[in-house]
């Protein structure tokens, strides 16, 4: 009779020094880190495009941030930082097996994510009213390329929070088994980190 118990067999394609035993614990799971690495590469290309475009069009990039609604940019930064804080609190509570509090913090993180999406949508609308679009100038092309992409990431990660809340309610996570929740948490923090870089590039630096 076949055993249903699964055993972890290392793939043997990485250096031994990269193993969890030698290098430390991998938060979440390996697949989410492959995803995070892909996202970092994608945003890295956007940031490189920004610096190259700024090199060729310094005057346009100097005036660009003055055309944007800085207050919304600041509010969105505070909202995303708060969402990261709530996510970290959710993780702290699942480790103590406090499922009720964990769920509460996940809802708060989701609320922040949705607030970000609403604020960003309003900002895009406000830009439209001012007559700014992707083809206004090179700054706005980079701005829309970067921020709309980030907007999509927040959107699907917010859906993932809903999924994790559903799984939490079904009893899928506990103090000893929460790698799925942790995987979402590290992904969410990565999205926040990308905004930490986007904000000064587009709203602050002249």
């Amino acid at each position: 009779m076949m055993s249903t118990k699964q055993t972890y067999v290392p793939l043997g394609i990485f250096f031994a020094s990269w193993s969890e035993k030698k290098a430390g614990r991998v938060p979440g799971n390996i697949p989410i880190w492959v995803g995070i690495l892909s996202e970092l590469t994608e945003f890295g290309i956007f940031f490189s495009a920004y610096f190259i475009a700024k090199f060729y069009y310094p005057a346009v990039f100097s005036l660009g941030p003055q055309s944007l609604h800085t207050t919304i940019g600041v509010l969105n930064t505070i909202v995303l930082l708060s969402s990261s804080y709530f996510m970290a609190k959710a993780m702290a509570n699942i480790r103590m097996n406090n499922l009720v509090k964990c769920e509460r913090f996940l809802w708060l993180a989701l609320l922040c994510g949705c607030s970000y999406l609403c604020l960003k949508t309003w900002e895009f609308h406000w830009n439209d009213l001012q007559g700014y679009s992707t083809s206004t100038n090179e700054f706005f092309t980079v701005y829309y390329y970067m921020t709309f992409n980030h907007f999509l990431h927040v959107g699907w990660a917010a859906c993932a929070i809903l999924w994790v809340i559903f799984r939490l309610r079904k009893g899928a996570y506990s103090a000893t088994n929460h790698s799925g929740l942790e995987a979402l948490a590290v992904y969410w923090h990565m999205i926040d980190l990308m905004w930490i870089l986007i904000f000064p590039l587009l709203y602050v630096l002249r």
Partner: protein
Amino acid sequence: MKGLGKLEYYLMVLILITLLNTFLGENFQSTAIVSVLVAITVMCKGIVVIDHFMELKGAHRYLRLMMKTYFVIFPSLIMLTIFY
């Protein structure tokens, strides 16, 4: 009422840095010093999130190194824009 924990303290620091950066950007024309200050504060914000919110401090050292390197490279490019 419970006192502020570490996470609350870090959140406040991150928000204060954001407001400081915005103040610098709004009140000073792009000078070398503003760009350097913004780059350094962005680096600090990134490292705080990586270590304390993402909890990579004490986790896999190569993942932490990867994330931190990212937050050294791109803020350094902000400093490079001074020479544009």
